[in-house]
């Protein structure tokens, strides 16, 4: 064990690996922080580069770039209310509210600090618990995935600040959008209107970019410049994080655990981890009324959760070659190409390479703190820049990023369309984040439901028979009827007026 660890150190302490990690970290931070460019795209664009690198250096670039990009997706979310990834969409409103209150450094500091802690917790789980975690992953069939996705969808109402009815409406629009295309269980084109481009359906990323970034630019054009945030020195980023860690240590731990478990499940990943954790944080908070007004508690839990899921997402990839998310899918390709074939032999015969991967994860999460601080400081100039110069740059990023998705104009048109949809929804009080959640989860809900029914010959009993499915079903149904029970109980007690929690 000690010898493998020393071998692993020797593997990563070459100039090639160090330079590769360094360069990939900066690259990941920059791509992730540009609105319209995603962590997945950052990783995919690295693949041709990995051709020319040694195996360990190749993996190092993927590990470093993906960890950094997921974190730096929080930066435009907090500063401009334009989340960089679907994962940061869960709490972009909250972080932006903190910026408006003059607490941008606390929000972003929490992002970098709890992301790093989450990433390290996830890596430790990968090191110590990989085999048992992999067993969890393999015990999930489509029945379990259905309930999991169902629970994920229910987060829409918990997270939204607007009325639950409008949140559900927003989510249903998202579900409708996820019906577009041919990638459904029947393999039948739906809502494609004969357009080849629509066969592939609407990906969450262009929709996200449209409803957040483009809609934001449109709003900026139509509204007077908001009162500038008081000009002052950007305070210390890390100050106060230790206090938060002590105050919210339970939320942080819960976020880590949820992130690790959801990350291990192939197909779930960081997006769902962030949503579920943010919703849990609000549900179990002692002060839920503060959520949405610039309260850091949810950021702590969700930030800790989504980065924990990145590392644990590698467990099924490394053991079974089953990708936990799109980034892991790309990483598997690189692993095969470099002769580090996923499988249990990777853990025994190539143990030193495995430990090198663990070490790289830990190093990436540690250097995320200084790099992240520099990045936040640079990005904070955006707050001081006049809006008339920031908005065109955002538009340009959106156009370039959406073109780069498929190298055609369809992506650009999609982003523009969703910009209009997002603008109209926001103006009428419908939360766009709920719609993004609907698009992310819709395919999974449908796929899991239909394939489960095919497998059970149309019977719904297996949704409740399998032990894990039964537990998840009880949670989902419980969460669904809980508000009704509370309402009935209040009515029976003589109808105390409901608290005015609606904005």
């Amino acid at each position, binding site marked *: 064990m000690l010898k493998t660890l020393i071998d692993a150190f020797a593997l990563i302490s070459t100039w090639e690996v160090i330079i590769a990690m360094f360069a990939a970290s900066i690259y990941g931070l920059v791509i992730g922080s540009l609105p319209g460019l995603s962590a997945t795209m950052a990783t995919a664009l690295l*693949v041709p580069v990995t051709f020319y690198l040694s195996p360990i250096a190749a993996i190092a670039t993927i590990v470093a770039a993906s960890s950094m990009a997921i974190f730096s997706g929080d930066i435009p979310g907090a500063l401009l209310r334009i989340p960089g990834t679907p994962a940061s969409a869960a709490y972009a409103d909250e972080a932006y509210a903190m910026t408006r209150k003059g607490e941008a450094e606390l929000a972003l500091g929490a992002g970098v600090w709890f992301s790093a802690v989450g990433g390290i917790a996830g890596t430790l789980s990968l090191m110590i618990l990989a085999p048992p975690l992999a067993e969890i992953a393999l015990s999930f069939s489509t029945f379990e995935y259905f309930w999991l996705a169902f629970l994920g969808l229910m987060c829409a109402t918990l997270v939204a600040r607007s009325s639950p009815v409008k949140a559900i409406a927003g989510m249903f629009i998202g579900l409708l959008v996820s019906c577009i295309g041919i990638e459904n269980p029947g393999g039948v084109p739906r809502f494609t209107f004969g357009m080849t481009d629509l066969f592939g359906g609407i990906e969450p990323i262009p929709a996200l970019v449209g409803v957040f970034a483009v809609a934001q630019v449109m709003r900026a054009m139509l509204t007077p410049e908001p009162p500038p945030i008081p000009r002052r020195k950007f305070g210390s980023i890390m100050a106060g994080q230790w206090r938060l860690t002590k105050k919210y240590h339970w939320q942080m731990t819960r976020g880590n655990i949820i992130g690790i478990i959801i990350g291990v499940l192939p197909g779930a990943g960081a997006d769902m981890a962030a949503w579920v954790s943010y919703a849990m944080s609000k549900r179990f908070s002692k002060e839920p009324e503060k959520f949405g007004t610039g309260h850091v508690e949810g950021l702590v839990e969700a930030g800790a959760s989504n980065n924990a899921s990145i590392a644990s997402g590698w467990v099924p990839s490394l053991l079974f070659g*089953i990708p936990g998310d799109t980034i892991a899918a790309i990483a598997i390709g690189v692993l095969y*190409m470099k002769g580090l074939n996923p499988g249990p032999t990777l853990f025994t015969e190539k143990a030193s390479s495995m430990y090198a991967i663990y070490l790289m994860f830990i190093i990436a999460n540690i250097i995320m703190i200084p790099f992240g601080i520099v990045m936040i400081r640079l990005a904070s100039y955006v707050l001081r820049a006049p809006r008339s110069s920031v908005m065109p740059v955002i538009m340009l990023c959106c156009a370039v990023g959406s073109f780069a998705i498929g190298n055609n104009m369809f992506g650009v048109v999609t982003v523009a369309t969703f910009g209009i949809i997002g603008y109209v929804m926001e103006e009428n009080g419908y939360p766009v984040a709920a719609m993004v959640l609907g698009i992310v989860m819709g395919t999974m809900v449908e796929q899991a439901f239909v394939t489960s029914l095919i497998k059970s010959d149309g019977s719904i009993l297996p949704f409740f028979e399998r032990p894990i499915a039964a537990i998840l079903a009880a949670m989902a149904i419980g969460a669904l009827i809980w508000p009704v029970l509370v309402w009935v109980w209040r009515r029976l007690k003589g109808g105390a007026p409901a608290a005015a929690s609606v904005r």
Partner: protein
Amino acid sequence: MSKKITRRAFAASSAAAAAVAGFGFKPALAQAYPARPVTVIVPWGAGGGTDATARIVAALLEKDLGQPFNVVNRTGGSGVVGHSAIATAQPDGYTIGMLTVEISMMHWQGLTELGPKSYTPLALMNEDPPGIQVSSGSPYKTVKELADAIKAAPAGKFKASGTGQGGIWHLALVGWMQAMGLAPNHVAWVPSNGAAPAMQDLAAGGLDLTTCSVPEARAIIEAGKARSLALMASARNPAFPDVPTLKEAMGIDYSTGAWRGIAGPKGLPADVASKLTAALKKVFDSKEFKDFMSNRGFGTVWGDATEFATFMDKGDAQMGVAMKAAGLSKA
């Protein structure tokens, strides 16, 4: 070292040629192809198996022909978008692309007008046959036992997966059922988002068998969670010498597979096409390509322009029969 010099010399001479052409002093001799960078269109996303194969082929072509071969991913439309981009490009040899098995399937489903005839085939580079996998807890030790159980069971009792509805591994199952004289839907198909989720569901106990390729199932098989009973191929895979072919195990001569090849738009000049095919043959025979493919577990199959065309026509007809039988065809 010598290689490097040749490449540099080649680049210099072609740059000079381009410069001359640019100034209007077109040499009397026809300019040697390729005189400028070539675009290689991949209809699937960056990071996947098709993308990786195209990139290694492009890198080796670049080495041989001395001009950049830029890989461009034109994704979307389940492959239709990229395949159309290859077919509708200028047939001047400066846009080529990687075709995948879907080109012989999509037109039967009525998704596009494009078929193998819409291209100038250049070379077949790869084919991966489907395997038949069961979970390690399954009672069936050989494909014969599994097949007997399937025959004895009522239609729809056994569930299989491996890809989406109407995907290549679905048609492999349909073809196998027909070869055994059973109804195409005797084993129910459970659509999945690719081979990896199907293998996971197999291990989770949600399925009876999968018909994806053995390399796709490899990691789970090595983890002891599943085993491969047979290959629907004409020969065994050297990487998995213990897995028999269907013919060896059951006497059924049925084989199919997912393939990848390079082609240009229809009407590519004959000299350009033959130059590219010759260069692709060199790529195919190179150690780099062989090593890369065996690392990924991908099978290598060579076919020159004519062989590739015949191969696609035969596959196209076979797909048509299977898709009509499975009720997936609109043609």
